[in-house]
Each structure stands twice: as structure tokens, then as C-alpha cells.
């Protein structure tokens, strides 16, 4: 059952990766990064149960805390009014 969870998480990660590469605006990419962060938390937790070593959960916990910082930092340092410029590149 954990395998099914891991497989589904991998598929969701792939879809979010496509969105991160294609994403027309910066905000789409931030959304995709945040989504992949959550999926990674779940994947690592699932891997901990698959391999029978639940001390992996420390890493999940760390990600749940740290992933937030990257998202907020991007929001902080994106300069305003540049969305149009990003859609072109």
C-alpha cells in the first residue's frame, strides 16, 4: 500500500515538474515548487515506512518547516510589476 502511495506521489511530482518548467509566470513556478516540497515530505515519509526505518520522519519534519522559507523568500524578492517581462522569456 505504501508503494501505491509512493507511486502516486512520484506521478504528482512529475506533473508539478512539468508545471514548474512550463509555468508562464514566476508565481506558477513558486506554486509548483511549493507543491513539490509537500510531495517530497510525503515521499520521504512513505520511504521511511517502506524501508522500515521511521527515523526518516525527521527529514520530513525538517522539510515541512524549511520549505516554507524558500517560498516566502521568493515572494519577498520578486520585484513588483515584472510579470509581463517573465511571460516573454
Amino acid at each position, binding site marked *: 500500500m505504501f508503494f501505491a502511495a509512493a507511486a502516486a506521489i512520484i506521478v504528482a511530482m512529475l506533473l508539478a515538474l512539468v508545471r514548474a518548467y512550463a509555468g508562464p509566470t514566476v508565481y506558477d513556478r513558486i506554486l509548483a515548487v511549493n507543491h513539490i516540497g509537500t510531495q517530497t515530505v510525503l515521499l520521504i515519509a512513505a520511504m521511511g515506512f517502506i524501508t522500515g526505518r521511521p*527515523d526518516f520522519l*525527521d*527529514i520530513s*519534519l*525538517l522539510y515541512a*518547516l*524549511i520549505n*516554507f*522559507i524558500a517560498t*516566502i*523568500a521568493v*515572494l*519577498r524578492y520578486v520585484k513588483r510589476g515584472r510579470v509581463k517581462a517573465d511571460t516573454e522569456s
Partner: protein
Amino acid sequence: MSDFLVLRVIAKLLIPFILLFGFYVQMHGDYGPGGGFQAGVIIAAAFILYAIVFDVNTARRMAPMAVLVSLACLGVLLYAGVGVANLLYGGRFLEYGAFAHDPAHGNHIGILIIEIGVGIAVAAVMMIIFFSFARRR
């Protein structure tokens, strides 16, 4: 970020937990994954989150550059000082077994102290790098 009220409330709530987790990683490094380096980075990340969400200047006043530089030096010196202390106790440089009668016990003490030194140094250096980048804006 003055117009992000929800963000500021949640950040205020999260920062203590990030710091606490950093200390957990620091002290739990000998039983689980983690150690001084990771703990230092996590503690620095808590300060960086504060600086991002609230104000770089307030964060800088909370952790002034002079204090950070002294802390970085203190961390490295703590590590090297353990080695010198081993010499004084009659061992070789960084041979922690000399700390106690039982070498395993002495090793454990030595590892704990140097991990704390690594944690202090890494946290201070990460904050130094962040603040000196943020200063130039």
C-alpha cells in the same frame, strides 16, 4: 511584507518551532540523523525567516554583526580548544578518550562539545553571509 498579516502571524508561530527543532537536531545528532552542521543551518534559517517576513534591520539589531563574528570565532575555537584540552589531559590532539576514565564516555563528551562548536560556527557564518548580502540592497 507589511501587508501580509496572515504570513506574519504564522511566521511568528513557526519560528520558535524551527529553533526548537534546530536544538533537537543539535542534541540528537548522536542518536539520529543530523548534527552540528545541520542544526546550525536550521537555526540560521529561523533568523532568516524572521528577517524576510518582518524586517532585515530588526533582525540585524537582534543579532548584530559584531556578535555574529565573535560567535563564529567562538565556534571554531571551541572545536580547536577541545583538541588542545585533550593535549592537556594527556591525550593526543582531538583524542577525546582522554576526557574520562572510560574512553567511550570521553569520546561521547568530546563529540557533543565539538558538535556544539560546529553548530555555533555554522549558524553564525550563515547569518553573516545572509546579512552581508541583504545589507547591499
